[in-house]
């Protein structure tokens, strides 16, 4: 089968238009990070005429950016680790055992998505205050772990389902316990699933704004999204140059990890949704 040449050209034009719309805002951000404040408004859409690194220098030396970056990295790393630790056994139980309430799981998964941030944050606020976890990174880590858990369990269950039970049964005859067979047999075969969960909880914890905004009280404890919002909001006039540089620096590490891991996340998410 062939397509009419004119139709095929139109197809390419439309796709390229979409690509320009998707890329253009990011390109503007990149350009602005290398422009002086005067040039940003003299030529909002142009390529930087003389590349300046002042914006980056300013962000790195005259703001708390590096501290906030470290906070974000710590929170993300811990959330990814904890999500896997909690979700792997639960996903395994869902995949291998039968128990009451098992069918409730997918309902619960959707229901947690619908919990409004304001209710959760008001409830958590009291709890975090009681345990002196307000304005601390562990407070955020615990919250993000609970947010990423439903999807993580669901993703991992999908991957575990694909691993033949026969493999485990052979090991169990040799005296291998359930827990050991999860660690020794199932997990090594579900590395793509773990990467999917890792990518998902990384994005969630690195990008989350609302809870971090409410829980964190001072500059030294902000994560990057809160830092960026405060940086924009402080002092009336927005300094677009340094702000763009900071935003770009805040995106790049996760963008790289996401590009490496998105294949697993996409196949995990769609695999479950299509079945």
């Amino acid at each position, binding site marked *: 089968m062939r397509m009419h040449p004119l139709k095929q050209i139109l197809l390419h034009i439309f796709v390229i238009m979409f690509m320009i719309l998707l890329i253009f805002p990011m390109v503007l951000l990149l350009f602005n990070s290398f422009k002086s404040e005067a040039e940003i408004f003299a030529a909002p859409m142009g390529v930087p005429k003389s590349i300046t690194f002042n914006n980056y220098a300013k962000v790195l030396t005259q703001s708390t950016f590096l501290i906030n970056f470290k906070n974000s990295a710590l929170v993300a790393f811990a959330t990814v680790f904890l999500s896997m630790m909690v979700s792997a056994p639960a996903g395994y139980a869902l995949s291998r055992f039968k128990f009451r309430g098992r069918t409730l799981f997918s309902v619960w998964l959707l229901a947690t998505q619908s919990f409004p941030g304001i209710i959760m944050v008001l409830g958590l606020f009291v709890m975090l205050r009681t345990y002196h976890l307000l304005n601390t990174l562990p407070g955020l880590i615990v919250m993000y772990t609970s947010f990423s858990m439903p999807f993580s369990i669901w993703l991992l269950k999908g991957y575990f389902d694909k691993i033949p039970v026969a493999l485990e049964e052979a090991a169990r005859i040799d005296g291998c316990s359930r827990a050991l067979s999860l660690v020794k047999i199932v997990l090594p075969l579900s590395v793509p699933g773990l990467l999917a969960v890792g990518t998902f909880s990384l994005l969630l914890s690195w990008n989350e704004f609302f809870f971090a905004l409410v829980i964190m009280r001072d500059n030294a404890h902000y994560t990057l999204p809160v830092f960026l919002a405060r940086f924009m909001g402080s002092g009336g006039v927005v300094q677009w140059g340094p702000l763009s540089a900071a935003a770009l620096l805040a995106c790049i590490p996760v963008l790289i990890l996401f*590009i490496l891991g998105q294949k697993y996340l996409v196949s995990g998410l769609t695999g479950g949704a299509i079945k």
Partner: protein
Amino acid sequence: MRSTQPSFEEERKALPFLIPALLVLCLISLYPLIQGISRMFYTYQALTQKTVFVGLQNVKLLFSDHLFLRAFTNSLVWTGVSVIMQFILSYWLATMLNSRFLRLRRMFRGITIIPWALPPVVIALMWRYIFLGNGPLNMFLHSLGVAHPPNWLTEPRLALWTCIIANIWMGIPFVTVMLLAGLQTIDKNLLDAAAIDGANYLQMQYRIIIPSVKKVILIILTLETIWTFNMFDIVFVLTKGGPGNASLTLPLYAYENAFMYYQPGYGATIGMFILLCLLTVVVLYIREVLR
């Protein structure tokens, strides 16, 4: 076949694997939910600095609050337009990316995914720059001959729509990728057979393609509706609900009450209203899936 009734033996074996998740679920999901909801029955009195039980007074307040009604209508427009436009544009893009007549498909798909990784705050600040009165968009409109391009962020009639545009942009990668995955599962022979039988474009869409990806479409629409209704970041960074309250949505109004006006009880009441709206969406989805 296993029996439908789980044996005690099996449940006992499953339990140790479930304990960590159940602990997290109860302590950091269910408990805060209940605690948060219970706040709607209390009010904070600034004079005495005490929190007192007021029963359903916050709910009564809700129904006579014009600003709440405003925020609710804004939220409906914000969610409805965002989800529908995200879906239409993504469906269009996904069918094009799925076409075998498209060159460089892998590259285009790769580009489409990228904005998915960006923090909503960064997306919002990118668009805030684009929409500035003397920003790139108006510069562009000016060069096209528009003498007085509008002030996108400070014009009350436009502010909400400006936020919606940024939100649509943000949702396209996820929806497109999910739809594309659905489209790729359709049997090519089925499409070829239909084409040979002389089915036109619309018949193909309605008779074959949409029914085959119905499940994906339903889950995408449900998740996007929930996420968009709960979305806080975009409006907060772009307009903070302003000018006036032109772009105020429910999550923002709840936040303002709880953390700026010292009315956590009223904030929780608004939250409860959001929860009821969204649980309705979840119930509709489940009914549709079970049918």
